[in-house]
């Protein structure tokens, strides 16, 4: 058969998949009912479990190990009743938390731990890459069998471009990149991809049944004939029982266990059955349709293996039987169908696995690194975050596939299909204790999960891949025979002296045992973090949360605008707008009218963000804008009590930081504005920034002290420092407001809202506003007789053209200055008013220290402050009098001070009377 024909068929088949995926995606975009929202499609897509290994490798294994291959498919079936309960829980939790992968799930359960996410991701990559490479290899191998039937298989080509496997890898990478990362969906669903996978499941099943029927009924005369001959044939008779095929009970059980765990923890199974699940309602039907599928696809495996054994020379590789049997009968079209079926099995596995791994890799490794390196914050204006995330995903897919391709060439070519698959199963099975334990038991901690995973992973690596590598000559093989460091009990095939098991069973036994033990013991002896506790409660009691009781544990708040900025950055503007709309419609509120978002919107935002970048990263990002409020859940409260002090403290710091951030923002704003005001001199800007630096310095230094040396601080010190921080923050905001005022007054001369107003009225209002403060400080505030008189006698009412608000600012400023500087023991302020030569004069007199003549001009300058001898530096910005004088002058009046040291001071302003 010509190579061109085979490659052409493969490409045609991939194009068909493209078409299906594209069509379904188009329908989905048009809002039509999804074909994937269907229990049968769901169950069929689960059949991604059956890979090229099922297709070619099962027959191969049956030809050597008899019926033991069935454990890989019976295990999941037998587990279905338990899986049903487990899967419902997984799906509910994942929908609730917007989980995107198994790494995300485990990390989310253990306090959204970034470290765990990274470890799980690496474990998955280590475990799965060989498995993917196996699929690529199976395709190449299929092509070679088809094109070189009856000849010696060609050596693996060293020329990359001439290697069909290379092109297969590229085609798959393109398909995956297009349909596995089509859009950034918060639920990480890919309808087109799922539909294509379901289609492939049908193809592989039909093809396998076809070849089975062909061999059983056309080469042989039905099953009875085939089995009767097998019973007497010397090559096959021993395969009919476990005993004769020397399948130990332990091996059978371990294979069942590994495969039932694989159905939960294999990244592609998790992705299809949990992440891509459209509705929990589909689960019940899938629970019997999926095992039925497994039964059907396996029904002819054993007959095929027996047939191959009987018809072919023992030298023929049993993995090729499915292809060689029809070819030996000249039924080339069936062989081609078989190739398409195997190709189908391989592509579906590779596509889903690569999608899932790329989600993990980008969410848990690349994005956190980018957040840490602040790439998002510095460039977010220039780059569309969503598009960028998708690009990262695509690169990750390519990396994963290239890695697999490389592995296949460098390491994998001396292993058979089934053993590579089982090594992968054993690797990912290490995730099971942390995953399942965390679903039903609240106690496990992040450290427990981490320790268990690491121990399991190392035992696995030591017992399986390392000896293989040693046999391939990459590592010194010495440790296989003599144990690690020459220690007898550290032999990778007989750990702690346990002999007589095959390598897979042996490794699975020790790694899972030690993993679970360490996980359990560490969990009991370590303390969970607060977040782990709250997450544990959600995960274990998910039904309670789904039913809407106590939907939130931590009450968190954040500014709506902050949340919007973050969502824009990671999800893109459109998606953010849609999310806001959805939320507003669902809750019948307008978010833009609310400054502060309530807890449920914060959670809403975080879970959607988690859909894009994973729970741990989302948490990291949200922490920057969110402040946590009261914790309500009673159960958690009792445990929280111990850490409450720390929490309280950090909350206070958080809110301070929040304030600081806001101040910085306004500072920049003010600075910008200053720069653009041509009328302001450069040195003024310098002075302002200098004046701003001072409070910023104390805030920065003291808040760092509180953060860094919290343990060393006494309660008194801490509250002293915090109140300084608060006071200095106030100072900055006052300063900024006043600088902005000056800017306004100086730049827009016509901005005064001039109206005819009664001066007496205004002063009386100002005085009554400040009177309570005076009473508090025991200062006597007296209005002169004239005020009553002006008020009652309408003829002599003093009317001025003025901006009431601005003028009020002047009077209040003068009054509060007087209050600040009057005699601290028996303070008295007098307010007087007179009219002379069409000018109205208002005088405000205090009985303080007075102002030395040499200082009387300086006080009207910017940023000058008087220091009273006793009180040190008064709290003020040094801009009040400057602004007051500016305002009065804008009204064509003047502001002066009359004072003798020791005699108090009188500030008097004048305004033209109408």
């Amino acid at each position, binding site marked *: 058969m010509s190579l061109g024909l085979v490659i052409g068929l493969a490409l045609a088949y991939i194009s068909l998949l493209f078409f299906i995926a594209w069509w379904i995606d188009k329908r989905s975009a048009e809002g039509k009912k999804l074909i994937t929202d269907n229990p049968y499609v769901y169950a069929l897509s689960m059949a991604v479990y059956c890979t090229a290994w099922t297709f070619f490798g099962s027959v191969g294994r049956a030809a050597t190990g008899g*019926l033991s291959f*069935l454990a890989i498919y*019976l295990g999941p*079936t*037998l*587990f*279905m*009743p*338990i899986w*049903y*309960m487990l899967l*419902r829980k997984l799906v509910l939790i994942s929908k609730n938390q917007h989980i995107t992968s198994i790494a995300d799930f485990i990390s989310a359960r253990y306090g959204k731990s970034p470290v765990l996410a990274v470890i799980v991701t690496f474990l998955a990559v280590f475990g799965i890459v060989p498995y993917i490479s196996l699929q690529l290899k199976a395709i190449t191998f299929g092509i070679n069998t088809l094109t070189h039937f009856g000849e010696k298989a060609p050596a693996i080509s060293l020329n990359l471009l001439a290697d069909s496997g290379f092109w297969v890898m590229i085609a798959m990478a393109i398909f995956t990149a297009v349909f596995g990362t089509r859009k950034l969906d918060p639920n990480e669903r890919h309808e087109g991809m799922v539909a294509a996978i379901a289609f492939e499941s049908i193809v592989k099943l039909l093809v396998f049944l076809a070849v089975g029927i062909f061999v059983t009924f056309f080469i042989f005369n039905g*099953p*009875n004939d085939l*089995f*009767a001959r*097998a*019973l007497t044939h010397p090559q096959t*008779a021993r395969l*009919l*029982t*476990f*005993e*004769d095929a020397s399948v130990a*009970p332990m091996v*059978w*059980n371990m294979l*069942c266990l590994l495969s039932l765990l694989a159905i939960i923890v294999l990244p592609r199974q998790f992705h299809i059955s949990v992440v891509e699940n459209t509705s929990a309602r589909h*689960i*019940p*039907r899938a*629970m*019997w349709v999926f*095992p*039925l599928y497994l*039964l059907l696809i396996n*029904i002819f495996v*054993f007959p095929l293996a027996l047939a191959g054994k009987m018809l072919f020379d023992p030298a023929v590789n049993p993995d090729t039987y499915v292809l060689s049997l029809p070819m030996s009968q000249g039924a080339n079209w069936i062989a081609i169908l078989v190739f398409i079926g195997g190709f189908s099995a391989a592509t579906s596995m590779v596509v889903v696995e690569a999608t899932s791994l790329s989600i993990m890799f980008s969410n848990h490794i690349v994005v956190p690194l980018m957040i840490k390196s602040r790439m998002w914050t510095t460039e977010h204006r220039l780059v569309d975050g969503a598009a960028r995330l998708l690009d990262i995903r695509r690169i990750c897919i390519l990396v994963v596939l290239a890695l697999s391709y490389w592995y296949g060439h460098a390491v994998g070519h001396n292993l058979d299909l089934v053993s590579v698959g089982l090594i992968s199963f054993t690797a990912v099975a290490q995730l099971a204790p942390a995953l399942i334990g965390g679903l039903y038991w609240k106690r496990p901690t992040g450290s427990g999960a981490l320790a268990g995973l690491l121990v399991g992973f190392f035992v696995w690596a030591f017992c399986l891949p390392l000896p293989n590598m040693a046999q391939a000559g990459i590592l010194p093989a010495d440790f296989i025979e003599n144990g690690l460091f020459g220690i007898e009990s550290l032999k990778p095939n007989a750990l702690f002296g346990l002999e007589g098991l095959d390598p897979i069973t042996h490794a699975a036994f020790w790694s899972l045992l030690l993993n679970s033990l360490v996980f359990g013991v560490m969990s009991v002896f370590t303390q969970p973090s607060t977040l782990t506790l709250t997450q544990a409660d959600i995960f274990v009691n998910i039904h309670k949360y789904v039913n809407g009781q106590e939907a939130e544990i931590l009450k968190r708040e954040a500014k709506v605008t902050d949340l919007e900025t973050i969502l824009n950055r990671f999800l893109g503007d459109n998606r953010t707008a849609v999310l806001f709309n959805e939320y507003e419609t669902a809750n019948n509120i307008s978010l833009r009218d609310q400054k502060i978002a309530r807890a449920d919107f914060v959670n809403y935002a975080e879970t959607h963000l988690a859909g894009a970048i994973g729970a741990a990263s989302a948490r990291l990002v949200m922490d920057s804008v969110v402040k946590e409020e009261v914790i309500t859940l009673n159960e958690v409260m009792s445990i929280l009590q111990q850490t409450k002090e720390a929490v309280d403290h950090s909350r206070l710091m958080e809110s301070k930081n929040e304030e600081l951030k806001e101040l910085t923002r306004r500072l920049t704003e003010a600075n910008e504005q200053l720069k653009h005001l041509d009328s302001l001199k450069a040195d003024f800007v310098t002075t302002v920034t200098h004046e701003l630096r001072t409070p910023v310095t104390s805030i920065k230094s003291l808040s760092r002290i509180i953060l860094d040396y919290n343990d060393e601080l006494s309660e008194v010190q801490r509250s002293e420092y915090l109140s300084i921080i608060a006071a200095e923050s106030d100072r900055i905001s006052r300063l900024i407001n006043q600088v902005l005022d000056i800017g306004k007054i100086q730049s827009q001369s016509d901005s005064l809202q001039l109206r005819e107003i009664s001066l007496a009225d205004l002063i009386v209002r100002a005085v009554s506003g400040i009177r309570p403060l005076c009473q508090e400080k025991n200062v006597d505030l007296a209005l002169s007789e004239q005020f009553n008189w002006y008020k009652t006698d309408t003829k002599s009412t003093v009317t001025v053209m003025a901006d009431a608000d601005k003028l009020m600012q002047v009077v209040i400023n003068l009054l509060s200055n007087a209050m600040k500087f009057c005699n601290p023991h028996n303070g008295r302020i007098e307010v007087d008013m007179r009219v002379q030569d069409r000018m109205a004069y208002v005088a405000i007199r205090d009985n303080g220290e007075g102002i030395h003549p040499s200082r009387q001009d300086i006080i009207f300058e910017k940023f000058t402050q008087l220091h009273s001898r006793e009180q040190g530096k008064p709290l003020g910005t040094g801009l009040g009098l400057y602004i007051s004088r500016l305002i009065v002058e804008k009204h064509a009046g003047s502001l002066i001070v009359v004072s003798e040291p020791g005699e108090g001071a009188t500030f008097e302003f004048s305004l033209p009377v109408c």
Partner: protein
Amino acid sequence: MSDDKSAKLIIIFVVAVLLLNYPIMGIFDKRELRYGIPMLYYYLFVVWALLIVLIGLAVQNRNRRKIG
């Protein structure tokens, strides 16, 4: 999920584990044909099919109300 359903599912699981394990599996581990089919092969597939039926019965809500 009702306790009743959970109980059914757990019983099915336990039965399945027992049936697909030694010593019961050993009874059928003989080099003989039953109805022209190898005994172990026959046994495994029959148990398998039976399991699927049982699971289907347990998880599908047969007396649910039809909507629409």
